[in-house]
């Protein structure tokens, strides 16, 4: 039982405790939820301190037999990729608890129970080292999110919840087929053993590699979401309660990109390289399309949702550039997007709590009514559009650099997205915060309360920290991405198109 197991166990215990708690004692339920989520966060900070940057391989390994036949293990561990994503999940959960403190008024017990169950599923997804266990966590995280959207969401919540569940579920059954197929050939679900077998040539999927790759890829691409599989996302985001939007945008979308890096690339390198140009094109379409659609949205949450499509396009582009720099940038961008888009949804949620509207037209002149809220929103907006010294800048720069190394035209088109993001975000800011102050706004929109400060402050600190001193985070990430890139060099059966050849040199050069 090491620290990672404790981080995983705390939310699960919290979930069970909350289920047993008496329904009427609201204060106690909120307190318990905050206590458990903070405990998980503190424990996960311990992970960061104890993590050996220079040690090879996974750390905090626990490998216990769960089921003998088929050979399924409870096998969890962390590397540089999953470490920060686990901490991201544990950081955002207490923030979500704080955000929902007052805004959730019905069925409080179930709400916080589902939030903790969601945290358990998410941390599990990032920590699992056994393909089967990964699938279990993947699906388990689906159920609480379904209820969060469906019970506590806005008007069209039922439609959004169903669409969200069915999209993800349908895509992931294909992944299950692929996982079983791999098990039948490899005889194990153990991730590192499978990788070792592939790189030593003992395991080869032959012609089926492409099909297996696609089975995994579609499951992840729906989750990311990659254009044209993104249509569930605006619905789910807009209809979800604030906490649901935050968890969905900040962590759940990362499950998809994490899966691409963790499974698609190293396990099916040949197919991944063969498909890379196509996927990069889809990613670029997503970047530009997402930005253009965001620009014309009359609804703030929908705008932020489409901006996510755009931002996640950068992540996918970075991953499929097959360069060390692009990959590092993609991973960093996952974290950045988690922080800054999480903060955006949180702030939009604050506005909604006050004015009870998401329509941009209902606002105007908020800056006069609530100066601190406006300042914080401005910082977040600037972070989101990639202002230097704030976090997104670092990630986007690395991704664009990686994309340029792979294929210069990709970088040119993708950078259009950066410009567009400045347009729609600043325009949003202008319409909501400047201009004449409506009476409705003056009467209802008050400034941040201490509890709200507590929720948003950590995110602002992280934006500045990650923008100013990325060296706290990147070296650990780089070790892992380098290993994954090495793995993609083996056993390439498909024709490699010109560009990735360059990436090989880049990878070696670092």
């Amino acid at each position, binding site marked *: 039982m090491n620290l990672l197991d404790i981080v995983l166990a705390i939310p699960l215990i919290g979930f069970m405790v909350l289920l047993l708690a008496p*329904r009427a004692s609201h204060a106690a339920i909120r307190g318990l939820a905050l206590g458990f989520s903070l405990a998980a966060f503190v424990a996960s900070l311990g992970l960061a301190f104890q993590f050996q940057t220079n040690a090879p391989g996974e750390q905090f390994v626990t490998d216990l037999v769960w*089921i*003998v*036949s*088929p050979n399924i293990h409870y096998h969890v561990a962390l590397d540089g990729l999953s470490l920060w994503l686990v901490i991201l999940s544990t950081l955002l959960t207490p923030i979500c608890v704080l955000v929902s403190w007052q805004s959730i008024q019905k*069925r409080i017990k179930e709400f916080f129970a589902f939030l903790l169950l969601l945290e358990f599923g998410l941390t599990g997804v990032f920590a699992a080292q056994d393909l089967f266990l990964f*699938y*279990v966590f993947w*699906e*388990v995280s*689906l*159920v609480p999110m*379904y*209820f969060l959207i*469906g*019970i506590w969401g806005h008007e069209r*919540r*039922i439609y959004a*919840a*169903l669409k969200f*569940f*069915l999209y993800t*579920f*349908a895509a992931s*059954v*294909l992944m*299950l*087929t692929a996982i*079983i*197929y791999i*098990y*039948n050939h490899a005889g194990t679900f153990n991730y590192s053993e499978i990788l070792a077998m592939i790189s030593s040539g003992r395991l080869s999927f032959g012609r089926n590699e492409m099909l297996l790759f696609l089975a995994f890829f579609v499951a992840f691409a729906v989750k990311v979401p990659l254009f044209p599989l993104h249509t569930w996302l605006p619905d789910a985001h807009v209809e979800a309660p604030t906490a649901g939007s935050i968890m969905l945008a900040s962590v759940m979308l990362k499950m998809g990109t994490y899966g691409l890096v963790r499974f698609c690339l190293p396990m099916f390198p040949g197919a991944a390289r063969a498909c890379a140009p196509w996927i990069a094109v889809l990613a670029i379409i997503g970047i530009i399309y997402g930005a253009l659609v965001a620009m014309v949205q009359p609804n703030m949450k929908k705008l932020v949702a489409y901006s996510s499509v755009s931002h996640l396009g950068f992540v996918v582009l970075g991953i499929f550039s097959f360069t060390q720099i692009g990959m590092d940038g993609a991973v960093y961008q996952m974290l950045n997007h988690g922080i800054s888009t999480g903060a955006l949804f949180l702030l939009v949620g604050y506005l909604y709590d006050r004015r009870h509207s998401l329509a941009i037209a209902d606002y105007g002149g908020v800056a006069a009514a609530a100066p601190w809220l406006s300042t914080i929103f401005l910082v977040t907006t600037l972070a989101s559009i990639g202002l230097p010294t704030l976090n997104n800048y670092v990630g986007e720069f690395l991704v664009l650099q990686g994309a340029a190394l792979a294929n210069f035209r990709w970088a040119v088109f993708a950078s259009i997205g950066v410009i567009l993001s400045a347009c729609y975000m600043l325009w949003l800011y202008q319409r909501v915060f400047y201009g004449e102050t409506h009476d409705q706004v003056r009467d209802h929109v008050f400034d941040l309360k201490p509890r709200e400060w507590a929720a948003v402050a950590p995110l602002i600190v992280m934006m500045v920290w990650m923008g100013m001193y990325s060296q706290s985070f990147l070296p650990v990430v780089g070790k892992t991405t380098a290993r994954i890139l090495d793995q993609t060099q083996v056993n390439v059966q498909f024709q490699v198109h010109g560009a990735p050849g360059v990436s090989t040199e880049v990878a070696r050069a670092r």
Partner: protein
Amino acid sequence: MPVNVAPAGIEYVRFLPEIILIVTGTLLMVLDVMLRDRAPQAYGHISIVALLGAMAASVIANSSPGPAFSNLMVVDGFATFFRVLVTGVGVLTVLSSYRFLQREGAEAGEFHALLLFSVAGQCVMVSANELIMIFIGLEISSISSYVLAGYLRDDKRANEAALKYFLLGSFATAFFLYGIAVVYGMTGYTSLTAIRAALSAGPSTPPPVFIGVAAALMFVGLGFKVSGAPFQIWAPDVYQGAPTPVTGFMATGAKAAAFAIFLRIFMTAFEPISGEWWPLVWASALMSMTIGNFAALTQSNIKRLLAYSSIAHAGYVLVALAARSQVGTAAAMFYLAAYALMNLGAFAVVAHLSGKGERFLSVDDFAGLAERQPLTAALLSIFLLSLIGVPLTGGFFGKFYIFKAALDSHLVWLTVLGLLNSAVAAYYYLRILVVMYFREPAEAAPQLEPLSAGLRAALVIPAVGTLLLGIFPAWVLDFAGKSSVFVR
């Protein structure tokens, strides 16, 4: 064949579960005169004791496995697994029927006597090793359930259900019997092991066409019993019309027993010609899954919905049979156990909510259940998530093992189509969750009665079982794996 005229004592031990059930069933009919007005609950108590006794006797019998009565029956792990399963289904059916019968004013000894006879017939089926014996078990079980389906004799729909079930069931049994006759005519045997030997005996094998015809006839009969497509037409009407606890019983116990003989006949007697019959099973599996799931999408009556879902689930088990391997047999066994638990739970909830005269059977009648009765809603959610196949429930591991077995046997397309089917199925199960959790209760919603003790047990036991199968599947799977080797 040598005929052992005087059975040894141990053979009676191997037959003990059936003896207990038949004797108690007969006793209940006699006691009816004394108990009817004084202690109507006593029938249920006696039945539960008898069923638990039969379950214990099955376990005891398993400690001395072997044939009985001149090889007519055999006690092996397979038989024991299904005996425990069908008696367990019987117990849960009785538990969920206490309140139901009281509400309908229909407490009588016949109900429980017929239930015990039906379970006894299923026990005979699963432990028979010979076609005539299988047929006798099938008839005992079927005829009892025809009557049970029409047990509420003042209810029009129940009458329709019983008549339909009886007519079509008789046809199916006739097909099955005809198949037996052809096999006997071609090989001269009715014992499964002897037929297998005759079919794999090289040059002197009987003409394959006739054996194929016999297998096809039996396939028709059994396909009807398990409600696999294209012989599934009866299921929705019968499931809808029959009293809810009986529907649960037919959808789980009767189906499990029918699958048990399906597996035993096709994996022993007809195993040598498995290359011939598996495309049939393949097609039937795909049709059952597709028809069941797509038809369920549009249902608004919860019992019809569960009926179509039960057709789809029969399809999943047929996938395991199409794999025609030992792993496939074990997967089918596991799935049937998981399916019995989750489906019985779901039907128990329906029995609880339907109200007197089964008036509230629309999916919309579940609106706001999460607020009206949180515990019932939570338990039903577990069953529904398991029926969808979400991890950490028994239904997930059941599907996982079945499709793993199918991939082992290189049935890639059937696996892909089957899993996509399960994604379609998610929609209609989720619809029930939506109504329970996301809708407010209707204003005219009837006052729900609190869960009675019997129903509470009939809900909590399957829920715990479903979760246990989902977290520690190895307990059941190991036994299924060991028992999937048939006596040949």
